[in-house]
Structures are given as structure tokens and as C-alpha cells.
């Protein structure tokens, strides 16, 4: 009997110890954290600081210096400061620091802020155009891919001018990093925005040496930001090669078939008035063909959509004749877009950003092995045919 009570006591003691063990191991107080929501990387423009570091005798050789801006959300973002509209504090706090490697520079921010920078909620990395031109992206991103605190779901963008400017906003309650992330969701409704590129996706592409595209952000002097086309990253050097404008990006989206929605503005031949075709679904097949040493591609683009707007007052959409004519006009417009962007990526940039190489790798692995090393060069001379097939399914609620 006594034996049993002792045992019961021991068991309850063990259970109680368990309760105290659930405590706060490795806890971090949220008030002490500086939540980083966005990071921008730029090439340092201040010449003096460069010379200074070069002048140090026996120091390491001079490197390109990187300016990193971290965007922290402040306590005011959580809604405290909304009452007094007169002196609204900003919802974010940008901190910049310059150095030649990423982590030491980030750590130097400790000298400037009282909070512990916490990267678990970082949503976006923006790389300035001039930095992406001069430095290998794999080197720049190595820290962000290696670091455990950084999430691989972080988005990557390229800024045509200073990246730190895209993290600035005139509106006090707006957090630009969040805004940028939300804006990438627009991919579903226009062909002018690329599908979001996360670090995970970029990692593989950087490693395999394929060229790829990143969404390009342009910031204007009055604090506005705009998505404008795409940045072309060359696979071999992993540096920025150039930009595609919105029209070219549209063409490219048609080639890859990755678009989910968007518009095609075509012009009616008879009247010269615009007809707007709205994409409901988009599909493309890139078919590689190999004859001996000659590689060629055929793109088959298929899409279903509807007439969303047309200014041709004289015609009725209810007539099949007119629909056929509108289809034809939209097809021609898409063909024009595709032709234009193919010319640009093949002959001007000489980079395969549309994934032709991948299709060749899947269909003809042996051929791919042989051409893999110099693929971008080979790609620039490959003949590509394309076929666009659009179907208009309906014309909305007006049959006029």
C-alpha cells in the first residue's frame, strides 16, 4: 500500500517537472525583435568610402562595396498610431549599411538599431540593376540561400534604378515591401507580370547555369513604384544582361504559356478600331526537333478567351464571321509579340530565358549533353517556328 503511494507521488512529480520544462527555451520577445520584411542590395556609389578602404595598407584587395537596406516594420504598423492623423509616424523604418560582404554588413546594423534584426518574416529581396550587372548573383545571394533564418519562399526582384528607392514610400501607413509582394499577385490578371520567383526556384537555375528572367521594378522620383518588364539574367555569368520591356514580356509569357490571364489588344483590319481579347486560359507547347546536327523548335500556343471590349460599332459580335475576324486579328497580334521578343532574346541578348533548353533536355537528353555547355550561343542561331491558335468562346453580356 505504502509502496503504491510513493510510486504515485513519484509519477506526479515527473509529470509536474514536464510542465515546467515546456517553458521558453530559445524564446525571443517580440518587442525586442526588428522584423525585417524586405531587403534591398545596391552597388555603393560613394567614391570616398571606396578610396578609404583601398588606402588601408595590407588590407584585402578592394572589392565592389554593397549597400544593404533592411526594411523593418515598426510597432506603429500594428495600429497604434492611427488615431492622431496629424503626426503619423511611418509604418516602416529603413536602415542602410555599406560593406563588401553581406553578413558583416548586416551585422554592422547592430551599431545603428536597438532591436535584433529577425529575418524569418522577410518577404522580398530587391537587387539594384548596377549591382546585378557587376556581381555574380550566386555570390550576392549565397548568404540568403545559406542562412537558416531566411525563408526560401522569399521573392526576388530586380530594380532598374536604385533598389533602396523601391523600399521608400510617401504614404506613411504603407509598407513598400508588402506592397511589392502583393503586386506580384497581379500575375493572374496580366501577362506583363512574371510568375513570382522565389529563392528556391532561383537556386536551381543559378546552379545549372540557365538564363532566366526576374521581375523588374522601376521607382520614380515621387516615390511611386511600377513593375516594368523583366530583367534578363545570363546563365553563364549569372549577371544582369539587360531588360525586356512590357510588350516583350507579354510575348515571352505567350511563349512559356505561364500566363493565367491578360489582354490582347488587336486592331480590326476593316475599320481600324481596337478589339480587346481577354485571355481565359493559355497553353503553350515547345516542341524541339533534331535532324542530325540541326536543332529547331516549334511553339504551339493555344488559348481560349472572350471579347472583353470592341469599338467596331458597325459589327455584331453575334455573327460568327466577325468572331473569326477578331480571332484572326488577335492571333496576328500575339504572333507579332512573339516574333518581336524572339528576335530580341535570340539576336540581341543571346540568352534562352524561355526554357527552350529544358524542353530539349527532356526530349533529347543526348543532344542536350553535347550543346549544354554553350547553349545560349547555340540558341541564338536556332530556327524557331510558332503557331498561334486563339478561340473566342463568348462575348460577354452584349451581343452588339
Amino acid at each position, binding site marked *: 500500500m505504502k509502496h503504491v503511494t510513493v510510486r504515485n507521488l513519484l509519477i506526479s512529480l515527473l509529470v509536474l517537472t514536464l510542465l515546467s520544462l515546456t517553458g521558453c527555451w530559445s524564446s525571443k520577445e517580440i518587442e525586442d525583435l526588428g522584423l525585417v520584411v524586405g531587403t534591398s542590395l545596391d552597388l555603393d556609389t560613394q567614391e570616398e568610402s571606396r578610396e578609404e578602404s583601398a588606402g588601408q595598407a595590407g588590407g584585402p584587395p578592394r572589392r565592389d562595396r554593397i549597400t544593404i537596406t533592411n526594411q523593418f516594420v515598426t510597432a506603429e504598423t500594428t495600429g497604434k498610431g492611427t488615431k492622431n492623423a496629424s503626426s503619423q509616424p511611418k509604418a516602416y523604418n529603413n536602415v542602410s549599411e555599406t560593406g563588401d560582404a553581406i553578413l558583416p554588413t548586416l551585422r554592422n546594423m547592430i551599431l545603428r538599431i536597438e532591436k535584433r534584426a529577425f529575418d524569418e518574416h522577410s518577404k522580398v529581396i530587391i537587387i539594384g540593376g548596377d549591382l546585378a550587372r557587376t556581381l555574380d548573383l550566386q555570390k550576392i545571394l549565397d548568404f540568403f540561400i545559406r542562412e537558416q533564418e531566411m525563408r*526560401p519562399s522569399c521573392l526576388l526582384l530586380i530594380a532598374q534604378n536604385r533598389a533602396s528607392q523601391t523600399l521608400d514610400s510617401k504614404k506613411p501607413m504603407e509598407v513598400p515591401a508588402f506592397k511589392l509582394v502583393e503586386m506580384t499577385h497581379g500575375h493572374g490578371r496580366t501577362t506583363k507580370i512574371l510568375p513570382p520567383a522565389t529563392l*528556391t526556384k532561383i537556386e*536551381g537555375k543559378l546552379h*545549372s547555369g540557365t538564363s532566366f528572367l526576374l521581375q523588374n521594378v522601376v521607382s520614380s522620383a515621387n516615390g511611386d513604384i511600377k513593375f516594368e518588364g523583366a530583367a534578363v539574367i545570363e546563365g553563364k555569368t549569372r549577371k544582369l544582361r539587360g531588360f525586356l520591356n512590357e510588350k516583350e514580356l507579354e510575348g515571352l509569357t505567350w511563349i512559356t504559356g505561364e500566363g493565367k490571364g491578360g489582354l490582347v489588344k488587336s486592331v480590326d483590319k476593316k475599320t481600324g478600331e481596337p478589339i480587346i481579347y481577354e485571355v481565359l486560359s493559355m497553353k503553350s507547347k515547345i516542341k524541339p526537333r533534331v535532324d542530325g546536327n540541326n536543332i529547331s523548335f516549334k511553339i504551339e500556343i493555344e488559348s481560349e478567351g472572350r471579347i472583353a471590349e470592341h469599338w467596331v460599332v458597325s459589327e455584331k459580335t453575334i455573327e460568327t464571321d466577325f468572331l473569326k475576324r477578331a480571332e484572326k486579328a488577335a492571333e496576328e497580334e500575339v504572333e507579332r509579340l512573339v516574333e518581336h521578343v524572339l528576335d530580341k532574346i535570340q539576336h540581341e541578348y543571346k540568352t534562352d530565358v524561355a526554357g527552350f533548353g529544358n524542353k530539349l533536355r527532356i526530349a533529347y537528353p543526348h543532344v542536350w549533353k553535347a550543346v549544354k555547355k554553350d547553349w545560349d550561343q547555340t540558341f541564338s542561331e536556332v530556327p524557331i517556328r510558332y503557331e498561334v491558335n486563339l478561340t473566342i468562346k463568348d462575348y460577354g453580356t452584349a451581343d452588339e
Partner: protein
Amino acid sequence: MLLLVAFMKQPDKAAKVVLVGVFIPLLFYVITVVMVIGALSIDGVVMSTWPTLELMRSFEIPGLIFERFESWLLVIWIMQIFTTFTITYYAAALGMAQLFKKRIRPFVYGLVPIIYLIAMVPKDINDLFKFGDMVGNAALLLFAVLPVILLLVSSVRGGKA
């Protein structure tokens, strides 16, 4: 797995049980490999140290109570480690007990410090990976090659099967 068969109440169903037991994890592993390679591409998998975890971290689903899933993966992972550990631990103690013809208790407790010391052997993460490979190969030797040799020995000596 072979050890548990010896203790089954209906040993005649052994083959079926073993097959099902192997097939289910096999299915899960194949699905995992296909998903990971499909999402990260081979080049991405080669580059990351923990590809499965990387995959779980690479997406967030807003609006689904939980936006992030890696902690759930880790919970299940730890549960899995625990179950495999208990079985192998028990098997090791049992084997030793039968070998020395002693009771099992002292071996169960005696193995604890030994396992702890072995766990301390790998000095860094590369060592750990090498150690893992070695254990895998040793398992192949112990559970595929050794039983065959023992079977041969027993048939040569003419013992009853």
C-alpha cells in the same frame, strides 16, 4: 523487421506483413523524391543540404490557419525517428541478452552510454553524413549478405531448417 517476425503469433503471415510494411514507406519515399525534385529541379536539390525541409519552407499558404508547414513536418519526422529508434534499440538489447544468455534489463540500460558515445563520434556535419552512409552499408551487409551465409552454413552442416 526480421527480428519481429520471430515473435509473431502467426508466423505464416510473415511474408505479407513484411511486404506491406516495406511497401507503405516505399510509396511515401517515392512521392517525396518526386515532389522534391519536381519543385527544386535536380540542380537545386544538389545545392541544398536538406532538400525536403527546403521544399516545405519554400511555400506559404495564406488563409489556411497555418501558413508554414515545416514545423509539422519536423514533428512527424521526430515521431518517425522515435519509433524506429525504439524498435532498433529493443532489438539490440534483445540480441545481446540472447547472445550472452542473460536477462534483458542490464543490456537495456547498459546500451544507453554506449549509444551516447557513438553519437558523439562524428566531429562535424560531413563526418555525420559519412557515418550515416556507413551505417546504411553496414545494414546491407548485416541483413542481406550475412543471413545468406548463415543459411549456407546451416545447410552445409545439415541442420534442420
